[in-house]
């Protein structure tokens, strides 16, 4: 089986897209789990401060989550808006 340049670009893009999201989601997932666990512990100790803790938790989780979102955006660009793929198919 012969693979031309376009096929190679497509194959590598799909594989890397999967690896990017897969690896990139690990760190934020662990971090968010810890953050939620700590926040629940804090709410259990100080239920009156639940508002402040929840707000800080949401903002912090959004910041933690953004690295995973970056990876996801890179994957989506590789799949749906791949610049190299467009270059080879239009040539």
């Amino acid at each position, binding site marked *: 089986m012969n693979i031309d340049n376009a096929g190679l670009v497509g194959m590598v893009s799909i594989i890397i897209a999967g690896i990017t999201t897969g690896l990139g989601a690990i760190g934020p997932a662990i971090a968010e789990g810890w953050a939620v666990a700590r926040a629940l512990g804090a709410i259990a100790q100080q239920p009156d401060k639940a508002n402040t803790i929840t707000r800080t938790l949401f*903002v912090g989780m959004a910041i933690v989550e953004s690295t995973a979102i970056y990876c996801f955006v890179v994957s*989506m660009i590789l799949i749906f808006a791949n610049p190299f793929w467009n270059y080879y198919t239009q040539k």
Partner: protein
Amino acid sequence: MDITPDNIIYWQWRAITLNATLLFTWLIMLLLVVGSWLVTRNLSVKPKISRWQNMLEIVVEGINNQIHEVSQQEPNQYLPFVGTLFIFIAVSNLLTIFPGYQPPTGSLSTTVALALCVFVAVPFFGITKQGIGSYLRHYLQPTPLMLPFNIISEFSRTLALAVRLFGNIMSGSIIVAILISLAPLLFPVIMQVFGLLIGIIQAYIFAILAMVYIASATRNHRTNHGANQPSEEEIA
């Protein structure tokens, strides 16, 4: 399946294109402006107020309280900017329950525009609050060695704001589109309801982060007082 609504073009004349992002942004602006005008046309302070006025009061009051809690400052000066950000993003995310609607926040152009507004607003509020010299000095804050990092963080947090909102909303619509082709019955609905929750949370986070950035630029003088303030509240 498109990654951004910019590619859906409804009308084109020479260099001018009307794509889905623009169209739905205008629709939301129209909805918000006309809706607010209709509600605020006859405000009353009688014991019985109209239900729409009640709703708007809840929204404005809630945003006011959040701004006050985050910044510990008079919220009225920040309410127009932060409140507009929140309401625009929240409405544009919530309207996804209508079929055929493409959220403008799912396009990188819109989110970058919103993030650039924050990027401009932070020095604006900072300089009006404490003067240009004092504002620029906080770039040298712990030591002058940190100057390049402070400048980089200014740009990277703008990028992060834009990409975070874009990624969340875009991923929501893409997941629903993929699920419709895989398991069209019932399951996309669950993800769409989840998408509504994410939309509100992202709107909240965008507004709160904008407020946190503005507060950190305006509150430089009172860092020592600021450290004491929460403890006084805790005692009370």
